[in-house]
């Protein structure tokens, strides 16, 4: 537990929960990022304005933090381009097929006490833990 950061995790988590509650109270929408972004990509979908505004806010946050002197560290990514592409395809396809991601199911859905979202969260957590266990401890990547 060398890098455990409970205080910043609790503050950040509280803000994520607050954002989900604000979005519902103000706009009546669920703060599920895969659903919000998928709706922007959908050809036939309307109701795109609020979605684009939310994602713009998401991308603006680290830029504002940077101006305030808190530069966002460069994200640690795998060296292999093919792993990045395969992972991206799986995350995109899987979140849309399953109806949500870490935010839509993991936070909003679990907070609504939806059995679908509790099941989805348990499944994607276990699948991710198994993937890391296999890649790191079996293949030693």
């Amino acid at each position, binding site marked *: 537990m060398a890098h455990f950061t409970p205080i910043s995790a609790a503050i950040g988590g509280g803000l994520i929960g607050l954002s989900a509650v604000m979005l519902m109270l103000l706009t009546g929408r669920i703060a599920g990022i895969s659903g919000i972004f998928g709706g922007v990509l959908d050809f036939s979908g309307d109701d795109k304005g609020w979605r684009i505004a939310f994602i713009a806010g998401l991308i603006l946050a680290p830029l504002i933090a940077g101006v305030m002197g808190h530069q966002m560290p460069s*994200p640690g990514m795998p060296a292999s381009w093919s792993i990045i592409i395969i992972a*991206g395809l799986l995350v995109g396809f899987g979140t849309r*097929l399953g109806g949500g991601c870490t935010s839509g199911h993991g936070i909003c859905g679990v907070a609504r006490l939806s059995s*679908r979202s509790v099941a989805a969260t348990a*499944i994607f957590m276990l699948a991710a833990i198994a993937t890391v266990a296999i890649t790191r401890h079996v293949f030693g990547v």
Partner: protein
Amino acid sequence: MLMTASLLCGLVFGAGLLISGMVQPTKVLAFLDIFGAWDPSLAIVMIAALTVSIPGFMLAKRRSRPLFAAKSLWPTKSKIDQPLILGATLFGIGWGLVGLCPGPALESLATLSPRLFVFVASMSGGMLLESIWRRSRPLPQRERDLANVADG
């Protein structure tokens, strides 16, 4: 007002991901690596988010309508079906490979990292493939309408 409120919510969400450290894929992978040097921070993020959102959603459910829209669009699906199980499994594998889920991936575009652009482009490709695949399946219209409703 809908747009301003939405932008503000995106900013707060982004600040939360940033402060919690969940924009960093290596930190997410350290949580998923329960057989390695385990970092439980992501569990604290989830617990803190739920501590705020459970009572917040209870309050929101009691209100007749949101402030800047005609009605609240609560998800309507309740059945644990095959697409949910398969979709969550595929997402979990992809998440475990790189440590990025959609929120942190989009937010990290701000770093202008080429690897992030390739990840987001692939993720968009996966989403488009799913929508093409879903449209190609012979389903009754009612079921098709229902299938289009995301949980989040």
